[in-house]
């Protein structure tokens, strides 16, 4: 149970840190914290997908589904309250992941990234081409903030909402991770052939992880849409995808604290180099390479150490 409790601790600590930071920090700091909170939801939901061994490159496109659902459902003729629309956005994202899982989950390893990479691009093209529904390349603007907020335009209250959603989703993912299904998902991620030989339905569990992870991405997409007040195809950009993947790579995905620390590290670099934004991708790239090579070297070192005094 200790792993489950550690993950819960990480999530609650992060939620509290966001809220406290919000009250203490400057106006601009608020903006950074809100962005960090929403991206953390994205990173946590992405980590859930990686536990089944699949590093999807369609995560940001699926997040777009959440954003567009909120944009469409919160306006006439549907007129749903924004929070309900956000949850609906998560469900639509999960539904799309279910549809996508048939072609994509049949592939392994290298093919998985390629096909999700292309599926994400296809989804982004759909947002551009189906102009009547999605407003084409100029997207849909003037999305309201959630009504339940006392005064919607205040960033601090939005930050508290993000922190609340983050903690809720964090608890859901932590319990999933420690549950029977979660352990099996990780088993499939570690050795699929062995898992199916002892009776675990590997395909179903990989699909489960992909769908539940995409649900979180949809919720994050909805929050991004209400925060920015606009959603457009250009929000689905490779840099954000790389940031999510880099956070999981640098931080490691065994526990929740890994991706969150990774994301914090990347955001810090982004802020420190705000004056020279063109260097940010390079510095991220360098640290990802170091993390992978260093991790590989460290793991080798660990293996030797374990063997020596096993």
């Amino acid at each position, binding site marked *: 149970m200790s792993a489950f409790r550690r993950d819960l601790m990480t999530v609650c600590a992060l939620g509290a840190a966001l809220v406290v930071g919000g009250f203490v920090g400057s106006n601009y700091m608020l903006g950074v914290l809100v962005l960090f909170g929403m991206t953390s939801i994205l990173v946590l939901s992405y980590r859930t997908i990686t536990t089944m061994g699949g590093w999807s490159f369609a995560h940001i496109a699926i997040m777009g589904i959440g954003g567009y659902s909120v944009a469409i459902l919160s306006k006439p003729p549907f007129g749903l309250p924004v929070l309900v629309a956000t949850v609906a956005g998560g469900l639509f994202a999960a539904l799309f992941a279910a549809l996508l899982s048939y072609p994509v989950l*049949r*592939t392994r390893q290298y093919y998985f*990234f390629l*096909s999700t990479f292309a599926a994400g*691009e296809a989804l982004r093209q759909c947002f551009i081409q189906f102009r009547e529904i999605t407003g084409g390349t100029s997207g849909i603007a003037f999305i309201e903030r959630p009504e339940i907020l006392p005064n919607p335009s205040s960033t601090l209250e939005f930050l508290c909402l993000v922190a609340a959603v983050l903690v809720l989703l964090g608890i859901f993912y932590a319990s999933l991770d420690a549950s029977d299904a979660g352990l099996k998902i990780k088993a499939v991620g570690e050795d699929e052939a062995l898992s199916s030989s002892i009776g675990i339905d590997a395909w179903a569990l990989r699909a489960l992880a992909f769908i539940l992870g995409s649900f979180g991405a949809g919720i994050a997409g909805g929050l991004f849409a209400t925060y920015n007040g606009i959603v457009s195809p250009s929000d689905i950009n490779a840099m954000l995808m790389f940031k999510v993947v880099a956070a999981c790579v640098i931080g490691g995905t065994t526990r929740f604290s890994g991706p969150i620390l990774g994301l914090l590290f990347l955001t810090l670099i982004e802020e420190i180099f705000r004056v020279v934004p063109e260097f940010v991708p390079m510095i991220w790239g360098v640290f990802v390479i170091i993390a992978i090579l260093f991790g590989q070297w460290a793991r080798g070192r660990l293996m030797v150490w374990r063997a020596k005094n096993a």
Partner: protein
Amino acid sequence: MQILLNCLSLTSFYLCFALGLALVFGVMRIINFAHGEFFMIGAYATYLCISTLSPQVGGPVAWAIGAIVAAAVTGLLGLVLHRTMVVPLGDKPLAIFISTLALSYVIQTIVVQIFGPVGLSIAPPMRGVVNFGGAILPASRLVVIGVAVVLAAGLWVFLMRSEAGRRIRAVAQNPRGALLQGIRTEKVGRLTLILGSSIAGICGAAMGPISQISPYMGAGTLWKAFIIIIVGGIGNIWGAVAAAAIFGVLDTLMSQFGAGRFLALTSAAVMLFVLSVKPSGLFGEKE
């Protein structure tokens, strides 16, 4: 007739994008996300050679030197990539995929610092147009078609006939089996990566004059190359050639008959369809 020539030239473009990647991917089952950047570096190498040498030696020769320099530079990069990333991360395709993805951003930023963000363009070394019964084929495109054909044929001969080629094919079919036969898979891997990277460089040199070269041109070409490899089939270089032809004809016809803006959508849709019907691609054999 003009459409036919356009299909031919577009097929050769796509072949240029995908050939190097198909070779590396086919043999070593790894995806070099920085492949697009090698293509771009090839183009910039040619740009440098042409802008400095063409006054002395004239366009075509300067371009040829540029192509050779491009091949050498990208080949060297392939070697460095193999030594620093492929060897330590040999059996983990995910780690290589993400570290080459990171490498692509690093290379882009470096090239931007040297050449500036504004796209440059190479004065076409071969001017003029060749006429085929009313339809025209610009000389610089003829060069690309020529390079594509030479590379494909050369690769075919090299793989089928030469000793090193046979070793590469052995490793492609069954890495473990090849190891047992005493083939030093690491050396073959290095050769393949150098070959694949320099093919990308040469193609960059060939495509340079007919497209605007910018530090970010790699990403677009890479996306198309991925699609072609998936549709072409696993580990099958000739599958990639066939898929390049399929997309060459499809995309030309679509932009000819007014559906130009749906290109990206249809390419991705074709890829997803092929994946769900035959996961190993049209011509690939089951993994």
